[in-house]
Structure formats: structure tokens, C-alpha cells
């Protein structure tokens, strides 16, 4: 089969690989029809995530058709069109049995501090991902779901990570009616978080980024008030003034470990790897939320220490909430919202890239060329 493979920081290519096989009785092998590059894949691409091995196939957002099933699979059959959450999880451990699917303890031997994620380094379990023609899907009776007949395939792909994660980010904010919500980051997750904040009754939604085309999308797609932090000497002070010196009730960090906004932090963290990335978005979140407010973190952070202003969080009495999204718990409600037209996930798709052009896709997305917001990958096996 054809598959994207990592060749070292900033380098990927397509190679011929063996089609995955059934390695466990509850495995399925899925033929990928549409995949995506996620903003968090860029952390791998930039060499930020420990134990990212040359030869690995990335990709945790994909949908496809069941190609083969293991002997204990009961809920799926060959030929089913399925969407697969980015979480690899068993459904039966201490954490899964309480609904913490993204924190599964039975699928990631490499680390206890993170669950399993498709195509996301060995730190997340060493599973090859879906930027390929075929992918192994462990626990096929637990993770995947059949794509409803009425659902568009591109909407389904965005329901495997980006939309649930954005909605989850808003949910972790514990928004109550009338709250002022600030979202750092106008990438796919930030856009969905902003859109979801309205569904939860926000009175005001503000999105911060430095890319004008993404801020335009935040205005048109997510109905948000927007500010480009480059235009302000100090975005935190600006946000304080914009909220009558109070601060926001809820701030959502939808940026993660490679934030721009502070040159020194970016260079020391992201380029020189002297800390686990650049935590400026998280620090801005801590600074710009009101005392007693909530900071929700759904941006991707790795396991290495970062210079986070924790003392301010303590002294302001903040609630910090964060996790990888347990995607399948979000699906029933999100399916309703898509069906009712409240959310149209594929509206943010800007690029559809053939698998054979994956190197260009990564570069365009990483360098933010061509007004790229969300690139999908069209499989050659589709």
C-alpha cells in the first residue's frame, strides 16, 4: 500500500508499505477513503514529540471502509463505512469504564501519562496512522462507528478529532449563559471551540490569532469578535480593556505547544527544544482570564516541561481544565448538531491533497501558505 512516512524533522514522503494485518482478535483493518492533517501532526513534523520514529505513518483523522475484521469483532463487518475516533482505547480498563476514553491504560505501553493515539509517535503507543491507504484499527467493537447515511464524508472526518475537540474545549470551560469566552487560536479546533461556545450560551466570543485569513474565518464561520495580537503591544492588556478590566470568564487555549507571539519563547522552545515548546498561549490564557475564571486547554502539549506561569493561576484562583477529547462520548450530541445544521464541520476545509502530494500538504499547512485552514487527504485507494 502507499503510506506517508516520517523521515525526520520537516521531512515526510510516500512509500510502499505492507498492508496492516490483524494483530489482535478485536482488530479491524480499514481502507482509508479520506484523511486529514491535524494541527497537532505539525508537532510531530517539527520534531517536537519525543519518540517519533523515522518510518512511522502519521494521521489520526480518517474515515474509510472496513477491509478485514478479527475473529472477535461483533459490531462491524467488511464493507461498512466507518469513522474512527483519534483515540485508541480498550473500553474496559479503569479509565475507559468511567468514560475517560482518551486516558485508556491498556493500549499504550510507552507511557501511562497519555492514552493511545493513531499515528502519534511511540509516546502515544506506536500505532501507525491513517495517512495511508490502509490502517490497523484496534478494538474495532469499541472505537469506530458506522457513518450515518445522511452524513457527508468530509463532515465525518472532522468529527474524528477537530470538531469534538473544539466542542470539548468549550465544554471544559463550564460556560454559563452570558459568559465572555476568549479563544486563543483560530485553527480548526479554535474555530470549532468558538462556534460551540455560542451553543452553550456564551454572551460574547472573542478569537485571537495572528493570521488574518483565519481571523476572517472566525468572524464568518464562528460569528466571533476577533483581534490580531500582532497589532497590539500587549494583547493581555487589550483584552482586559475590552472586558472593562475584568478579564474573560472563560479562556480556551486552542494553540498548544508551538505558539507564536513571543519570539524568545518560540525560539527556545520550538526551535532549540530547550523547553517543551512555547507556552505563550497558555500564559496569555492565565493572564487574560478573570480571577476565579476557567482556563480550558485543548491545544496539544507534550511531556517535556514548559515555563508556565503557574503561580498566577494559583493566586488568581483559576480552574484549569484539560484533556484529550474522549471523542465517542461527544458524537451523539454532535451528530444532532450537524444534522440540525447548527454545525457544518466541512465549512472549514480549504485544501484537498492527494496522498502522493503529502510533503507539499505538510509544508503548506505548517508554513500557513495559500490561506490553509484545514487540509484533507484524498486516498489513492478510495
Amino acid at each position, binding site marked *: 500500500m502507499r503510506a506517508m512516512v516520517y523521515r525526520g524533522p520537516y521531512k515526510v514522503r510516500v512509500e510502499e508499505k505492507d498492508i496492516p494485518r490483524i494483530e489482535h482478535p478485536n482488530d479491524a483493518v480499514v481502507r482509508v477513503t479520506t484523511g486529514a492533517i491535524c494541527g497537532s501532526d505539525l508537532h510531530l513534523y517539527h520534531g517536537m514529540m519525543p519518540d517519533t520514529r523515522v518510518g512511522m505513518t502519521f494521521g489520526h483523522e480518517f474515515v474509510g471502509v472496513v477491509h478485514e475484521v478479527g475473529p472477535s469483532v461483533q459490531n462491524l463487518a467488511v464493507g461498512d463505512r466507518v469513522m474512527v475516533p483519534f483515540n485508541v482505547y480498550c473500553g474496559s480498563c479503569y479509565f475507559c469504564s468511567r468514560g475517560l476514553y482518551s486516558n485508556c491504560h491498556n493500549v499504550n505501553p510507552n507511557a501511562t501519562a497519555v492514552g493511545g493515539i493513531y499515528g502519534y509517535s*511511540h509516546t502515544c503507543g506506536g500505532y501507525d496512522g491513517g495517512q495511508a491507504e490502509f490502517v490497523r484499527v484496534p478494538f474495532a467493537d469499541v472505537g469506530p462507528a458506522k457513518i450515518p447515511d445522511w452524513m457527508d464524508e468530509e463532515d465525518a472526518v472532522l468529527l474524528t478529532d477537530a470538531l469534538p475537540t473544539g466542542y470539548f474545549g468549550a465544554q471544559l470551560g463550564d460556560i454559563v449563559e452570558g459568559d465572555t469566552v476568549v479563544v486563543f487560536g483560530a485553527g480548526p479546533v479554535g474555530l470549532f471551540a468558538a462556534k460551540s461556545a455560542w451553543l452553550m450560551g456564551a*454572551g460574547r466570543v472573542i478569537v485571537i490569532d*495572528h493570521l488574518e485569513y483565519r481571523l476572517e474565518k472566525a468572524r464568518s464561520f464562528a460569528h466571533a469578535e476577533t483581534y490580531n495580537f500582532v497589532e497590539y503591544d500587549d494583547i493581555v492588556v487589550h483584552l482586559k480593556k475590552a472586558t*472593562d478590566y*475584568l478579564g474573560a470568564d472563560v479562556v480556551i487555549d486552542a494553540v498548544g505547544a508551538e505558539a507564536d507571539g513571543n519570539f524568545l519563547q518560540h525560539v527556545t522552545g520550538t526551535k532549540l527544544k530547550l523547553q517543551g515548546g512555547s507556552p505563550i498561549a497558555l500564559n496569555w490564557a492565565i493572564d487574560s482570564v478573570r480571577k476565579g475564571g476557567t482556563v480550558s486547554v485543548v491545544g496539544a502539549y507534550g511531556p517535556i*516541561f514548559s515555563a508556565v506561569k503557574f503561580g498566577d493561576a494559583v493566586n488568581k484562583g483559576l480552574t484549569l481544565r484539560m484533556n484529550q477529547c474522549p471523542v465517542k462520548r461527544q458524537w451523539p450530541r454532535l451528530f444532532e448538531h450537524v444534522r440540525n445544521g447548527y454545525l457544518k464541520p466541512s465549512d472549514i476545509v480549504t485544501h484537498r491533497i492527494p496522498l502522493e502530494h503529502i*510533503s507539499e500538504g505538510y509544508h503548506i499547512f505548517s508554513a500557513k*501558505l495559500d490561506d490553509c485552514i484545514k487540509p484533507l487527504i484524498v486516498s489513492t485507494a478510495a
Partner: protein
Amino acid sequence: MAEIPTPYTAGKPALKESAEQLRDRIPGWGVDLDPADRPSFPREQPGIQTGAHWDFPERQPEEWPRERSIEHAFLTPVFGTSTPPAGLSGAIRKYAYARFSEGRAAHWLLLIAADRVDAWEHHLGSFATLRPDNPVTETGVLSEFSGHGVRSRFGQKRADVNHQWMDPLIVGGPWVLAGLGAVAAVRGLRRAAGARR
């Protein structure tokens, strides 16, 4: 005297728009207003139905000694089988897993170091294959032309332009140095061979 800003007194700031105005302007506004009626609430729900029909999953065969965190009691029943550890990078990785817990910086810094060793093991190894690494095609840098590289960056108030100039140095620099080193080595060998004649 100017009005006193919100946090200095007890009152809440007035909403910019009423619920009715927001509902008219934004499709679906407030449909998930009740925090107790949102998905994955409460966070932990013992006994949630997941589709699992086992108490403990059957164990996946271990086809090579699978590295694992020493914070795990044993090898997890299911695991990824992508890219087994090999070479010097593999040895560093195995040591990081066997010796240091996830709570130790050494664990992660060794893994990051192994990643860099891994990349160069493969770059050098690729020159002994029919498909050597090609930093031009693998970085996708040619999409600078198709993706409007100049127009996308300049006149756009982008913060990342401040550091993007470093990327070619970070990615291409080691290749240039390796090339210069190879040229110097070949010249040295030639000179040594000439001196022997």
C-alpha cells in the same frame, strides 16, 4: 468623574446582546445551555457502556521485546507495532524506557536525542538504497511556488515570519555541512593517495 470599571464594584457588566438577539444572529445559540445536559458530563460515569465484551482484553502477541514505561505493571495487552527500535537510536530508546520513569526529564530528553540520531541513521542509510533522502522533495518546499509563499507571508502581519527564516537553516544546514564534510573527506583521501604515489 469617569464611571468605575466593573471589577472595582459588585455589579456584573451588562451584556452586549440579549439572549433573543443572539438566538436570532447565531443558529443554535443556547441549545446546550444546561451544563448538566452536555456530552461527557459528568466526566466520570462508572459503568458506561463502551462496546467492550471482555473484562480484560486478550493479549496481543509480543513479536519482539516491546519497550514499555516502568510505570506500567506489565506490557499492555494491546500496543502499536510500528517501527521497532533498531541501531544506536534503538539502544538509546530502550535505555530511556528501562532506566527512567516518565517523571524524569532524562527519560524524555534521551528520547528526543534518540529521535535526532534516528533521523541521521536513516538519512545516511538511505544513500545505500535506491531511494536516498531528498530534502527538497521531502520538505515539500516546492509548494512555496504553488502555495503563494511570498504573498502568504508578506504584508500579512504574521508573527511567525520573525522566525521562519530559521527553518531552512535548521533543516538544510546539517545537509550542507554534511555535504561539505563529504567533499573535504574525498579531497583528503585524494591528497593522501597522491602523496603515496
